[in-house]
């Protein structure tokens, strides 16, 4: 058995194989690689005995699921309402400029990915940026470089 198959089997062993378990299974599977690989989708479809099209149909519907590899450090710029009125749009542009990639993209060396989130619920310290699990509050455009440099060494 291939290494990744073992990982899938371990996840599946926690489930009965019912259709309604699809979303929790997708969530657990994504936790392995940070995104849903094609072999994973195939394995899930087989396990639940549903067409792959339905597995894709459900997973593409929800914002939580990714289908491409993520950067080692996922940068999430919050574009919730409170962040928006405090200039998150320009902050996102500053990240795009500094990283040389657009929102939703990954740097060539896979060290960073940049994405937007619709609210992390830390509105009181807007604008907010999350790097992995770390939360940065009151981020100004000029601090973008500093935030990126903190993680550049850890790649």
């Amino acid at each position: 058995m291939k290494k990744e198959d073992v990982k899938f089997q371990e996840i599946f062993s926690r489930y009965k194989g019912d259709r309604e378990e699809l979303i929790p299974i997708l969530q657990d599977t994504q936790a392995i690689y940070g995104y849903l690989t094609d072999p994973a989708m195939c394995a899930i479809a087989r396990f639940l005995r549903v067409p792959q099209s339905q597995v894709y149909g459900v997973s593409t519907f929800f914002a939580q699921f990714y289908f491409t590899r993520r950067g080692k450090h996922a940068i999430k710029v919050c574009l919730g309402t409170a962040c928006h009125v405090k200039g998150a749009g320009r902050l996102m542009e500053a990240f795009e400029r500094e990283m040389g990639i657009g929102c939703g993209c990954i740097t060539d060396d896979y060290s960073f990915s940049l994405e937007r989130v619709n609210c992390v619920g830390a509105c009181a310290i807007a604008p907010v940026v999350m790097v992995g699990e770390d939360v940065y509050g009151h981020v100004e455009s000029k601090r973008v470089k500093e935030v990126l440099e903190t993680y550049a060494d850890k790649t």
Partner: protein
Amino acid sequence: MRIKLEPLRQEAVKNWQELQSFGQPIILVGAATCGRASGALDVMAAIGEKMKELEIDAIVRQTGCVGMCHSEVLVDIIKPGRPRITYAKITPELAKELVEDYLVHDNAREDLAICVQGETPDEDLQVRVVMRNCGHIDPNSITDYLAQDGYMGLAKALEMMPQEIIDEVKVSGLRGRGGGGFPAGRKWESCLQVESDQKYVICNADEGDPGAFMDRSVLEGDPHSVIEGMAIAGYAIGASKGILYVRAEYPLAIRQLKIAIEQAKERNLLGENILGSGFSFDLDIFQGAGAFVCGESTALVLSIEGKRGMPKPLPRPRTSEEGLWGKPTLLNNVKTFACVAQIIHRGPDWFKSIGTEKCPGTAVFALTGKVNKCGLIEVPMGIELDKIINEIGGGVAGGRAFKAVQTGGPSGGCLPADMLNLPVDIDSLTAAGSMMGSGGMVVMDDSTCMVDVARYFLEFSLEESCGQCAPCRVGTEQMLTILKDITQGKGREGDIDLLVEMGKAIIDGSICGLGQSAPNPVLSTIRYFRDEYEAHIRDKECPAKACKALITYTIDAEKCQACGRCLKACPTQAITGAKKTPHTIDSDKCDKCGICFSECPDRFAAVLITTGGTESSN
């Protein structure tokens, strides 16, 4: 039948009293998500270190969020025989000082304190029902909750007939706190009346509104209040299974809930034969995978069934008659359930004494944006907007002028300054063209462009549209195109009327609440800020100086002191100049990022923003 809660309660009260009179100081650290984002865990570690170093004994406990997010990290210290003192904006360094100064040298450090006895400065304006325990008890301790009369509502309910409970909820006048405002008692009754072998209770904690975090705070700070409410609902409608539908983006809330459910099971407050009553109720957590439209009941139910969350078109049975797996399903918001436990325990008349006649109880708002004191507030229904923003919120930040307040998220609208005397409740906000929604309240000042805000919300709704009905899928996109044109100075005469016409058509034609409310932010900003739209279209001018296409950055040669700050900071090298030579901005290279504007010291204020002939400096 005798409900055996009393022994549990007495033990909990004893524990609680012991804790208060143990002779040891108690240190409470607010460690909900907002506290943690501000470094609460580092503060806790620093306190621990310092206590070890000084060899002091004290009880250090985590609590949820008391609502004063503007002052995080919050640390409370209760010394035996002294009032409880709350300290604001504590860093690890300050925490160490505080421990040494207060616990060793008995210097209460009044310079760091913001209030005593856990009384927030605006105590007289706020009423705590839903958030009564948040920030006071340890959310991971069921005995803390029991000591605050927790589960007494459930114990009382189990000795009542289901219809009696529903009657109490009806008498209390409680209306759904998720946005719709549907009378909770009537919803419960319709669930009770349907005959079925299996029924479900679902708590909607898929808080997807950008700018809202009330439900998260309640789950993180007082998870048992929601569990209790759900169990009461289960008994009242005859359901043995409950599901907490929580956003996957709320990992801390999920963790606290799991702990709380386990603790409740251990004490037989959940599970088989609860407290010897013969009633069994199980609770599971379902992690929502991130779809705003799943706030709609049929979409939420479908996603639990493992399908795409696409709302079912009318005519269809109500979820309360035919919901999850085709069975009667009661779906209420986090705050609704948190109210229920209190209503049963303290009686419907108590609940009715708060708020207004048609909307009894309280409203919980996440007050954010350009306001001095961002945070979570709980106020009686019917309070004026002005009191919320200027008294509790401390007014607009930075001394700027108030322009609008947005409520209800992407389904709501913006209200202007002359509506500040509006009494806030579910109906009054709807009548004013906005909505209470689940409770986001974002304050905007004169630097926020209302056209841009409308564009922002519409973009959100478009992205979150499930796409099955054309008015929502195509209509919002067309409206967004027009709005983008307007913000880029390409607006045409007639655009405003076209937006209004399309907005009304989308409201009429969409099949679910998302489409039916998506145009609200646009329509309400047109209603109250039409002149701003007109300025964009006719004069190619953005009065708030926010729309990039309509503004230019220049440097006032007379004011510029040639300090070089902006020159160094400019990411596109658009600024030229030298020592003693006033700087200039090359408008072709300028990206309008605004960094020069924020870099230029206030005492020079040399960077100017111009739009359609008017200018302003920082």
